[in-house]
């Protein structure tokens, strides 16, 4: 427990602190970019890009070793990763544009073939460097154990750069993600923005390779935006919420993974992100499951209350259990089902409200069509006093006509 607290408070070593901060920055950038990708329906392209990094990493390692240098130089490996990720992206675009294959087939083909080639290279490297640990496996699922200071610094710096880039490009990306045609009409170069978006995905992938690993990094681009969607209906706020959720997952996951052996960083970050998703799904104020259930329950009771009161007013027998219990709880009927004084008064009020609503529906047909409050709420809480007065005049008129 103490180790856990230490890790969360950045007290388990300078490197671990740098990595946790870097992962938080990475998570926030990934969450924000992921939101744009999600709106632009390109999240799976990111999956192809991330898997396509593997051959680049391996080739960079082999190249460095062939030149007699240290093959584990992180910046060189990441540069290799970026180059082959770029080639993967070009391959997806080329295949979708030039042939009649769909984008899903292109994504799957690039993902599996690049990854397969990477695995071949990886196994060749392993077989050649027997005894010496090349450490390239760490890029598959992320490993922050035994990370060098310079590597941690690179990740923190890369994370900050990605955040800055997202903040700078957020306006055009929002426009393009929502409505590419409108964006192009107001003079935004959609192709350039798309290119920048994919460039950011590539940057995030490359920075995240060492922390999250190439197999799971796409989760950072998918889960936070989907979770953030529960918290708001406004795009700006969804982007910010996704960035916050991603940052929290990155920070906690990276910090926790140093507290015990055999806790892979990438898997922890993704699982924590998934936990935040479940919380959002259940507890978000407007779209969450709990809120929806409560709202539905309230609505049901309101409907039963109205039906019950109208039945009382019409002196009909009430058989429905829920209606009876709603009326009883409010003191509108006694235990044996006979209406109380208050119940009769409320019933008369409900009947008047119902008649007023009948008129209101005729008078304000279009404005009222969409509101779910129609007929349930007391009419003077929805319409103005003048409008209610107008309705009452019509009611009196039709009432006198009925008598005559």
């Amino acid at each position, binding site marked *: 427990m103490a180790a856990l607290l230490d890790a969360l408070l950045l007290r388990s070593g300078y490197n671990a602190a740098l990595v946790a901060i870097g992962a938080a920055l990475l998570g926030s950038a990934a969450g924000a970019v992921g939101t744009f990708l999600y709106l632009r329906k390109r999240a799976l392209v990111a999956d192809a890009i991330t898997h396509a990094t593997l051959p680049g990493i391996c080739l960079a390692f082999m190249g460095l070793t062939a030149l007699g240098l240290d093959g584990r130089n992180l910046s060189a490996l990441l540069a290799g990763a970026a180059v082959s990720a770029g080639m993967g992206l070009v391959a997806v675009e080329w295949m979708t544009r030039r042939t009649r*294959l*769909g984008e899903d*087939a292109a994504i799957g083909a690039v993902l599996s073939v690049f*990854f397969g080639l990477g695995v*071949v290279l990886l196994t*060749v490297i392993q077989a050649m460097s027997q005894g010496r640990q090349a450490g390239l496996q760490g890029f*598959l699922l992320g490993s922050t154990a035994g990370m060098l200071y310079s590597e941690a610094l690179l990740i923190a710096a890369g994370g900050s750069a990605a955040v800055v880039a997202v903040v700078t490009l957020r306006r055009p990306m929002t426009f393009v993600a929502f409505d590419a045609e409108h964006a192009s009409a107001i003079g935004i170069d959609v192709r350039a923005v798309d290119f920048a978006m994919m460039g950011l995905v590539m940057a995030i992938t490359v920075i995240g390779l060492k922390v999250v690993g190439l197999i799971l990094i796409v989760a950072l681009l998918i889960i936070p935006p989907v979770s953030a969607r*529960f918290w708001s209906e406004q795009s700006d706020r969804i982007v910010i919420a996704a960035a916050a959720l991603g940052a929290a997952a990155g920070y906690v996951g990276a910090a926790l993974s140093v507290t015990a052996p055999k806790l892979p960083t990438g898997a922890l970050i993704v699982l924590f992100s*998934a936990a935040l998703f479940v919380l959002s799904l259940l507890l978000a104020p407007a779209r969450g499951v709990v809120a929806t259930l409560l709202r539905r329950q309230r609505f049901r009771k309101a409907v039963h209350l109205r039906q019950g009161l109208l039945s009382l007013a019409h002196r009909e027998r009430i058989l429905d259990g829920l209606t009876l219990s709603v009326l009883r709880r409010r003191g509108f009927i006694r235990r044996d089902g006979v209406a109380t004084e208050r119940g009769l008064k409320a019933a008369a009020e409900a009947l008047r409200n119902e008649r007023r609503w009948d008129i209101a529906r005729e008078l304000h047909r279009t404005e009222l069509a969409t509101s779910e409050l129609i007929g349930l709420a007391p009419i003077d809480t929805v319409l103005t006093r003048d409008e209610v007065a107008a309705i009452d005049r019509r009611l009196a008129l039709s009432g006198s006509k009925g008598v005559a």
Partner: protein
Amino acid sequence: MGAEFVQLSLVPLLIAVLAAVACALPGNFLLLRRQALIGDAISHVALPGIVAAFLITGRVSTWPMMLGAAGSAVVAVTVIEAIRRLGRIEPGAAMGVTFTSMFAAGVLLLEQSDTSRVHLDVEHALYGNLESLVWLGAKGWGSLVDPAALAELPDELPRMAVVATLAALLVVMLWRPLMIATFDEGFAATLGIPVRALGLALVVVSAVAAVAAFSAVGSIIVIAMFICPPAAARLMTHSLARQVGWSLVFATISAIGGYLLAGYGPGWLGFRASGSAAGMIATVSGVILTLACLFGPQRARTMARTSAPGAVPEA
């Protein structure tokens, strides 16, 4: 090319070919139905189930792992449906969340469990270990008719054979309804074809093929073979029957070529090592797909779909 070949290479080669064919057959229809990424999905989801089966039984054995994979596939489908219904989230996003989370859970389980005694790790799940499926009981070609030696065959081989046969049976027996439903679901429904049941059968057979291939040879082959051979075949012809034929040819070439290249290729380049056969099979299928993209006779998107011969047969 004698006893050593039979002992070390024949069985892995056969398993590779059977796995490639079992995945490529349903892959043809998945490709046309725009469900090509289903292999990717299944291989992500199966991991926690396979690890859980290992933790419960304590052994790396076939049937518990298949059951575990099937169980986690059912869990995944339920979770996706729950997220979609409860959260009003699009199916694609719900799938993305579920697959990545389940895979992460599988990785964590795997790292936490004590699997050092047996060969079960993340790398194994990703790219299998085709090379290790050797036939130690074989002494030469004669062993093919020797019951004692045959009994020592790795049980991945008969299992893959059964699954490949199952896939072939599905395609052959349900050919007409499957073809009509794939190209025009509405038309198929008016003919009284049970469209939903057919789609479900296709997905179930794909899942069985994926899980069987996954536990024998790793997930890369599964993802690559579901997509690359059918995609390359689609660029060769307009006829579905010929497409399926081409895809089988491509799958077989990939499996054999990839296996041999992985064994001997690095040596030709001067490396004293061999590469992963599973990875190489995926690579070869990618080379075939690239060639088809460049030179395939029907690669362009110009022909109207309805005039394509074989698109909809005359009733």
